[in-house]
């Protein structure tokens, strides 16, 4: 019953796709560094380690970066250090990843008590910066390349346990995992077959950034003297050697700095590229065009509204996706004052897009045009003072929980329009709101205004939203699947409030729903949308007696009869 979601398949299944340019750059860079790690020691090892009398030479054609105090070629040293750096980093990363992922996934197959205990202990470990943990291990094992690798590798585990546990959590709760267990697939097989493959992509992103961080920390330990020791050298050790003579020979830090940055960058780019290519939003960016979310005149001659008194008068409303697909194909209708118009259709019929365009809230990544669009006396195709529109048009959305701001109190949110646009004082607005909440039979109205949305039930939130439309005496109430997420007994309450509000202030109602039974009970007139077209407009009576002409309406009616009717 998704409403505003565009018909983009929300699938995460396997498919062929182009490699993201960032990813390609990262992979090429990493391949180059790996080649260096293999080839540099045999090719430049001699120049990098042999002591000569050419000490502290400035950069020249022969020594691209000059020489150090022992006459060793600095360029060669920077290249040769690649091997040790990469080997140590890869080892430490593998240690963190293997331990972290195994623990982070297997705990989900363990009893809840065990899982909580492990995660609790891990949460304590995560609170310490990994470098501090690494220092503890370095203090035990002493300075050295392998102790430092072990230290960084182990210190990275808690973070990876947490990340992979978090990443596995949504997968483990998916039905295909519980189904597999019910079918008798053993726990470890479930992890291998269903959990790990489905977290592979985000996991690779993490591994890449873990590699970058590990390299920085490992080189950092070498830099401060706790890691690689003479006569071996990695990037960190070279940088530390260069720091000693920073005033006399600042060029000595160039080689290791550049290599550190290139290696880190390669890993980061691979991570970023993987993330970008697995994210459908960035993936589809290549062919999108310009800004969206606009409402413009179609350019066709505007037809004057049939009834100048109508609350809503729409002619030729069209909505396009950014990719150019027409989602609403020229819909026209009127809503008389005090009338309840139902728009009914299944997912993808364009009913929510129509409703949102009427409110002047064309969703991102779509664009709307119309020949004429009059709402509550305002021409939406021309600039409309925001205050007038906010006052005259009230909206109630499908999901009560997500349409309220979780961080703000109910009173603040529901009086926003009254305070901003009607110039009411905070106190007056709150008192008025309490009165309206009471009128809509909400218990303890004063307390509600001080509560946060998560403290109220869905039905209560929807009624509160309707109450705020009473506050501004809106002329049009748009209810977009406002009761679809509610239980039937709660739905009835909300529907009754909508009717009551419409009567008490004489507001028109645009009632959007997939539920033919509800629409039939609520509305004076019904517009049936199918694939973006208004296929039929019916009076409540015609619908009640089944006098429908379009094939689709008939099918919908039959299905509704089958699925919804009690007798």
């Amino acid at each position, binding site marked *: 019953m998704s409403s505003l979601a565009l018909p983009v398949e929300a699938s995460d299944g396997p498919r062929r796709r182009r490699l993201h340019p960032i990813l390609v750059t990262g992979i090429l860079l990493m391949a180059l560094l790996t080649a260096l790690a293999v080839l540099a020691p045999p090719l430049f090892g001699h120049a990098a380690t042999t002591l000569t009398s050419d000490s502290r030479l400035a950069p020249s054609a022969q020594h691209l970066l000059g020489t150090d105090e022992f006459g060793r070629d600095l360029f060669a040293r920077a290249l040769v250090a690649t091997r040790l750096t990469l080997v140590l980093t890869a080892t430490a990363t593998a240690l963190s990843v293997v331990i972290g992922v195994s623990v982070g996934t297997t705990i989900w197959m363990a009893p809840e008590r065990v899982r909580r205990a492990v995660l609790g202990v891990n949460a304590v470990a995560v609170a310490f910066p990994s470098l501090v943990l690494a220092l503890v291990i370095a203090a035990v094992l002493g300075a050295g390349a392998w102790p430092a690798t072990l230290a960084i590798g182990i210190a990275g585990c808690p973070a990876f346990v947490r990340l992979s546990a978090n990443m596995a959590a949504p997968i483990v709760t998916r039905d295909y995992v519980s189904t597999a267990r019910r079918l008798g697939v053993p726990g470890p097989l479930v992890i291998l077959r269903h959990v790990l493959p489905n977290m592979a992509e985000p996991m690779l992103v993490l591994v890449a950034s873990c590699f970058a961080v590990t390299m920085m920390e490992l080189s950092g330990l070498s830099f401060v003297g706790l890691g690689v020791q003479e006569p071996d050298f990695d990037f960190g050790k070279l*940088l530390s050697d260069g720091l000693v003579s920073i005033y006399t020979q600042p060029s000595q830090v160039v080689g290791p700095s550049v290599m*550190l940055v290139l290696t880190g960058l390669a890993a980061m780019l691979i991570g970023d590229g993987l993330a970008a290519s697995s994210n459908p939003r960035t993936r589809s960016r290549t062919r999108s065009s310009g800004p969206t979310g606009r409402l413009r005149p179609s350019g066709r001659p505007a037809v004057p509204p049939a009834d100048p008194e109508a609350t809503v008068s729409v002619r030729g409303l069209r909505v396009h996706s950014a990719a150019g697909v027409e989602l609403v194909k020229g819909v026209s209708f009127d809503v008389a004052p005090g009338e309840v118009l139902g728009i009914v259709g299944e997912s993808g019929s364009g009913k929510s897009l129509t409703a949102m365009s009427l409110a002047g809230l064309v969703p991102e990544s779509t664009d709307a045009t119309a020949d004429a669009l009059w709402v509550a006396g305002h021409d939406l195709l021309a600039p409309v003072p925001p205050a007038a529109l906010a006052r005259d048009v009230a909206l109630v959305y499908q999901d009560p929980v*997500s*349409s309220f701001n979780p961080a703000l109190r109910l009173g603040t949110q529901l009086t926003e329009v009254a305070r901003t646009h009607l110039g009411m004082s905070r106190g007056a607005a709150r008192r008025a709101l309490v009165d309206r909440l009471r009128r809509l039979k909400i218990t303890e109205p004063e307390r509600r205004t001080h509560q946060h949305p998560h403290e109220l039930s869905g039905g209560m939130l929807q009624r509160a939203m309707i109450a705020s439309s009473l506050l501004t005496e809106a002329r049009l109430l748009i209810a977009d699947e406002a009761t679809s997420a509610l239980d039937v007994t709660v739905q009835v309450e909300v529907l009754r409030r909508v009717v009551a509000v419409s009567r008490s202030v004489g507001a028109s109602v645009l009632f959007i729903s997939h539920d033919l039974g509800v629409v039939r009970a609520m509305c004076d007139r019904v517009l049936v949308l199918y694939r973006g077209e208004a296929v039929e407009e019916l009076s409540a009576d015609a619908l009640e007696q089944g006098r429908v002409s379009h094939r689709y309406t008939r099918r919908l009616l039959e299905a509704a009869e089958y699925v919804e009717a009690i007798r």
Partner: protein
Amino acid sequence: MKLQISSPWPRFLLVKALEWTSAVVALVVLTFAVVQLVPGDPARVIAGQDASPAVVEATRAQLGLDRPMLEQFRDYVLGVLRGDLGESFRTGDAVSHVIAVRLPYTATIALAAMALTLVISLTLGFTVAGLTRGNRNRWLDSAFSWATAGLQALPHYVVGTLLVVLFAVTLGLLPAAGTTGPRSYILPSVALSLGPICAVSRVVRREASAVLEQDYMRTARGWRIGVVKQYAKYAMPNLLASTLTLSGLILAGMLGGAIIVERVFAWPGLGNAVIEAILNRDYAVTRGVILTIGVMAVSVHTLIDIGLALIDSRTLDAEGASA
């Protein structure tokens, strides 16, 4: 059960206090274990491989390693509670004195860097998210991604070194090392915060984009309130909450970064002290400093959690359920 009239705060604070305490207890045990876990004979390792057996035994007695482990642990814990962390094996200074002298230097650059990080990355990330909303300004999107990825690949100590080369050695504008006045704090703080600024502003940008697409932002747009108010009043609190959740580790991790960065600037802080101590096998100082930095990290963590609960009351209720 449904009507919970009492405030959830006392319970929340109690849970946080318990978490803090258990983390500190873990730290005490961990730091105590440092000496016990040294491979081979700790006394021999500390005294040096060439020391005579008499010297080794003297070292053992001096460090109390000849006593039963439980007794050593009891003394260590009692010492920690009294604020007595022993003496440096090399210099004879009281460890608590070493920490008292050096802590302010580390705390200053770490806190300055955290503040810089939060302020800059929130502003930067939020602005970029707002400007690139719905595929607008795609050049800015790519520029931001590339720049932050590139700068993030620079380790603290490389940034520090390059800053020294540029501002101290070449331009001579700022001091390269040591603490010679307020100006000497600039380079270490910048070096320490550059990477985290990139990391956190990427988090902010991603979270802000997500927040701006939420249903409640559509609700706020439906109320036709100004863009600035929409962002500041309706998006910011949620953004702050998710950003703090995700970047708490980065902020606490800056204490780790400080250890390494201090080396670049010959900074007289805890970082240089602990590295020296580890290299010298000066276990009393090592323990004391790690304990101090650890407690600081845990405290930052706890403070962030409390700040989070102040911003978003949902975390109060969810406490205990999350991992």
